[in-house]
């Protein structure tokens, strides 16, 4: 800043020109974190018009409604003989609702495709980040949102149940396992859908195509698997159930909550079903991650 003194008392002109930045400057970690935050803001429509906020928050509402309903019924029936009545188990609630699927299909493309379509990616080149950082940040952003949106309803359910039960403290101590099972199951779910959603969305620059592809991928595999497995009875499932990419995390959820595959599920009764499910889960994650990293390999030899 240069100051021109008028010579007499009380007059000076300050140069409003450019001031070099002298402050703190982060590197890769800071840049990556900033990208996570910016992507979350974008997905949730923060700092944009209210119209962009409708879809995500509407879906959040839809996903939370069962919890509220359950708590409400629990409250209404608290004095009636049907004690311990729960429409909704925590295990059930860590589920795959169409709302969640829709949510991924809306949010993942919104976070990936515009950067490509509007050719914003080159602006990332002059930032202290690599292609890998970019991918990690995007997946991290979707994961955070999915986790939050799945976890919040669970919190509502738990607190609600706690409050309408006869003795809140007893309820709490009696359901301690829920406190680690639910977050873990949700993490398993959220990571899975985040990576797949982002990987599919990264393949195209049009949001509509990406969203349709995500939904399509899940539906087609789900239906195919259903056809192949066919009608089954408890304990009479088939290994083909793992083709159902959409529902794969469910089996892991069951392992977390029950310690083993649910016999009633399409995978029930399959030898080493649990191991199979975990194996396929890991494979899908690795494949999707590899596809992502390859797509965003910025440096050419």
């Amino acid at each position, binding site marked *: 800043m240069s100051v021109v003194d008028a010579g007499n008392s009380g007059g000076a002109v300050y140069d*409003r*020109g*450019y*001031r*070099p*930045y002298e*402050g*703190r*400057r*982060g*590197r*890769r970690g*800071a*840049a990556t974190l*900033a*990208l996570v*935050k*910016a992507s979350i803001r974008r997905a949730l429509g923060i*700092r*944009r*018009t209210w119209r*962009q906020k409708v879809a995500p928050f509407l879906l959040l509402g839809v996903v939370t409604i069962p919890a509220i309903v359950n708590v409400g019924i629990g409250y209404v029936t608290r004095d009636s003989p049907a004690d311990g009545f729960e429409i909704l188990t925590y295990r059930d609630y860590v589920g795959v609702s169409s709302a969640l699927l829709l949510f991924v299909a809306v949010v993942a493309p919104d976070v990936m495709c*515009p950067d490509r379509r*509007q*050719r*914003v990616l*080159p*602006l*990332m*080149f*002059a*930032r*202290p*980040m*690599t292609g890998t950082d970019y991918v990690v940040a995007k997946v991290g952003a979707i994961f955070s949102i999915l986790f939050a949106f799945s976890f919040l309803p669970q919190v509502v359910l738990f607190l609600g149940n706690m409050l309408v039960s006869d003795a809140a403290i007893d309820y709490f101590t009696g359901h301690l396992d829920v406190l680690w099972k639910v977050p873990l199951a949700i993490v398993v779910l959220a990571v899975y859908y985040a990576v797949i959603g982002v990987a599919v969305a990264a393949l195209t620059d049009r949001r509509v195509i990406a969203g349709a592809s995500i939904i399509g991928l899940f539906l087609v595999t789900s239906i195919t698997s259903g056809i192949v497995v066919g009608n089954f009875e408890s304990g009479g499932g088939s290994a083909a159930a793992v083709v159902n990419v959409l529902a794969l995390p469910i089996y892991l959820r069951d392992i977390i909550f029950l310690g083993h595959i649910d016999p009633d599920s399409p995978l029930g009764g399959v030898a080493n079903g649990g191991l199979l499910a975990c194996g396929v889960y890991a494979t899908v994650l690795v494949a999707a991650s590899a596809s992502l990293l390859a797509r965003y390999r*910025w*440096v*050419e*030899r």
Partner: protein
Amino acid sequence: MVDAGPLLRLTGLTKRYPAVTALDGLTLEVPRGRVGLIGANGAGKTTMFRMLLGLTQPSEGHIEVCGLDVAKDPIGVRSRLGYMPEHDCLPLDQTAADVVSTFGELSGLPARAARQRASDILDLVGLDEARFRPIGGFSTGMRQRAKLAQALVGGPELVLLDEPTAGLDPLGREEMLALVARLGTFGISVLMATHLLDDVQQVCDHVVMIDGGRLVVAGATQSLLEGTGTLTVEVGPRGTELVDALARIGLSASSVDGTVEIQTNGDDHFDVVRDTVADLGLPLYRLSTRLTSLDEVFLRHAGTAP
């Protein structure tokens, strides 16, 4: 701590692709300041930018940017660079203030500092009033300026500009060039890649010309334009009278397309010519020893490369 060394140091820089050799044994040092990069016949310009950003590895040779070796510390180099691509690249549904401050954060600035700097930089590029409007509604000139703002917000040492005046009408072009010129006074170096030699001449202190991947010429703009050894004079339709009068004094002159060219080898010829013109009562419309444009420099040197 700003390194006082050269802006760029290229040593034997070569990049070979299957179909074409984009850069071939480039060796030069470029000082800090405003530098124009002119490329012809090939992918030289794009390749050069990609290499500076560490996105492309050289087949041979080294690059140093602001004292850092790009191969060893690409992230370090990138944090000192700003980049303004040629194409549209800003999200259209966000406001200018939001976009520029987000990119400030992406450059590693803390959120509050990013917001403050975004505001300052937008003011600097003349988008102060339009700051809170979505970029989708901006004219071409405004978008170019927003692009420049995004490149400056991180406090770079060097800004890479790719055809910054593309798509701008003559007035917009003047404004953009004035902005670029000011960057030099802020201590920010500029590497401007363009096809327009005129832009470079107006704004850049230093010029690098590449043709077919090879260095054609590099040097300070002023020195490239100087000294042809010929004095060029325009006096209107009576030029031949001047030629004759000079011949009588012993100066070799000829009339070319209404312009009189005089072979000189000394400074006192200026005065002789001046006096001769004055004696003849001719109007002195033009007097010059320099090449008047980089176009002429380019044409003299280029075409010699393959």
